[in-house]
């Protein structure tokens, strides 16, 4: 019977060390630590994220895929800047770099925009690394241009599918839409070539999630992701504060879900009511702590930082 933890005792101690440092970092910077429920009656509507539903309770409850909605309700209630270390759950995500239950650090900075939040992430990671780190920033559009000589604004879906099949052999792209093609190319043709810490920002508006549209460029949203050697570590936004726009995005998610034969999800009316009542401008980010530990300890598999797999 193999009862042993899959992480080494050193990795377990390093996790405790970075949790202490994260709390000290935010406490000295005036962020309030909060704790929101892992089980809630509604869940994220993201088309590409599936929630685990808890059976045997009425009404049914969902294990949260991130604490975003609850934390935004705290922000609307006037909490000011907040952070949380928690577990999040995503159905079906299992592999060398994924576990259905994983650790997340999520924080919101009132008055920041996404570029200022990227500055703070750099400072946090440098603090946790105990050494100097180099960070680069590149827009999503520029990343595709530099890596694949591909112009995402003008390329046709036919040409995009052709590039997918050429760059990722063994792919049948005939049923992939534009965003799915871009996801495929980013994950399989671009990410493996990336080196060091890289922020990719200004995602296409069609991939905005809960990010605010950019004022400088109507085709993009103020969303960013952080990669280390191609491994995705964090996802953040200048947060969308407009309740009507947020409702439209939830409804659009459900429309796409219906077209793909996925289940419809109840919209979180309490989040929309909170936005309606007014949420201050802020930027927020979710950072995968298991993966950050993998990077800091130079480990290749998420198993090596988890006490036990699910």
């Amino acid at each position: 019977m193999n009862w042993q933890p899959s992480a080494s005792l050193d990795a377990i101690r390093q996790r405790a060390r970075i949790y202490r440092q994260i709390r000290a970092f935010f406490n000295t910077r005036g962020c309030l630590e909060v704790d929101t429920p892992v089980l809630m009656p509604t869940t994220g509507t993201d088309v590409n994220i599936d929630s685990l539903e808890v059976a045997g309770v009425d009404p049914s409850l969902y294990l949260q895929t991130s604490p975003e909605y609850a934390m935004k309700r705290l922000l609307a209630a006037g909490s000011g800047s907040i952070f949380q270390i928690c577990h999040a759950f995503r159905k079906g995500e299992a592999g060398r770099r994924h576990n259905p239950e994983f650790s997340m650090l999520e924080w919101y900075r009132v008055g920041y925009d996404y570029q200022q939040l990227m500055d703070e992430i750099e400072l946090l990671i440098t603090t946790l690394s105990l050494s100097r780190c180099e960070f680069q920033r590149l827009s999503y559009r520029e990343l595709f241009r530099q890596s694949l000589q591909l112009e995402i604004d003008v390329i046709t879906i036919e040409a995009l599918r052709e590039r997918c099949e050429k760059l990722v052999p063994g792919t049948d792209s005939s049923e992939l839409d534009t965003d799915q093609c871009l996801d495929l190319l980013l994950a399989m043709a671009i990410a493996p070539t990336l080196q060091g810490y890289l922020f990719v920002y200004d995602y296409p508006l069609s991939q905005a999630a809960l990010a605010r549209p950019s004022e400088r460029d109507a085709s993009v949203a103020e969303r960013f992701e952080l990669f280390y050697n191609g491994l995705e570590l964090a996802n953040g936004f200048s947060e969308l504060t407009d309740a009507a726009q947020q409702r439209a995005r939830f409804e659009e998610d459900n429309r796409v879900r219906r077209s793909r034969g996925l289940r419809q999800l109840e919209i979180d009316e309490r989040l929309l009511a909170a936005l309606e009542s007014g949420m201050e401008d802020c930027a927020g980010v979710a950072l995968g702590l298991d993966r950050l530990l993998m990077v800091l300890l130079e480990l290749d598999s998420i198993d090596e930082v988890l006490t036990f797999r699910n």
Partner: protein
Amino acid sequence: MIGVFLIGAVMASYSTNEFRGGLKIMIDGDPCAIIENEFVKPGKGQAFNRVKIRNLKTGRVLDKTFKSGESVDAADVVDTEMQYLYSDGEFWHFMDPQSYEQQAADSNAVGDAKQWLKAQDSCEVTLYNGSPIGVTPPNFVELEITDTDPGLKGDTAQGGTKPATLETGAVVKVPLFLEIGELVKVDTRSGEYMSRVKK
């Protein structure tokens, strides 16, 4: 006949979340075995399974990408332990030691294994829809030398080797002191001589 028909009618399939090494699936009409499966997903984007597979008919290894959640037909492939009987030149004949049922594999299906096959030896025969498509010989076989240059007596300490033809037709490098008629143990995976075997 009815049984066979029914099995064909309710073809099993696997979802990408059941993918793992060794699973047998149909790709482009050919039975394939999964060698490696990697789950790839941008946090908020489409998830994919990047899979390395071996075509069990041709032996070729190729990469395939699936959207996660897609289903793929299962391949009706089973590996069975069978006893090698004989070859008539065109087919290699095997027998299931439990049912005594016989199978004839053609040259394509036997492939490189044919040079190691000795009557009575137990092999792994891969059956696809009930017919052989591959044969794996035992890891180690003991075969008689049927031809080699005369042995050099007293040369056991030297490291030299010479080619020797074995009873199945395989040619392996053996130490200089070995003679025609002697029995040797060979690793079929590397084709290397392991040791002399006392008769």
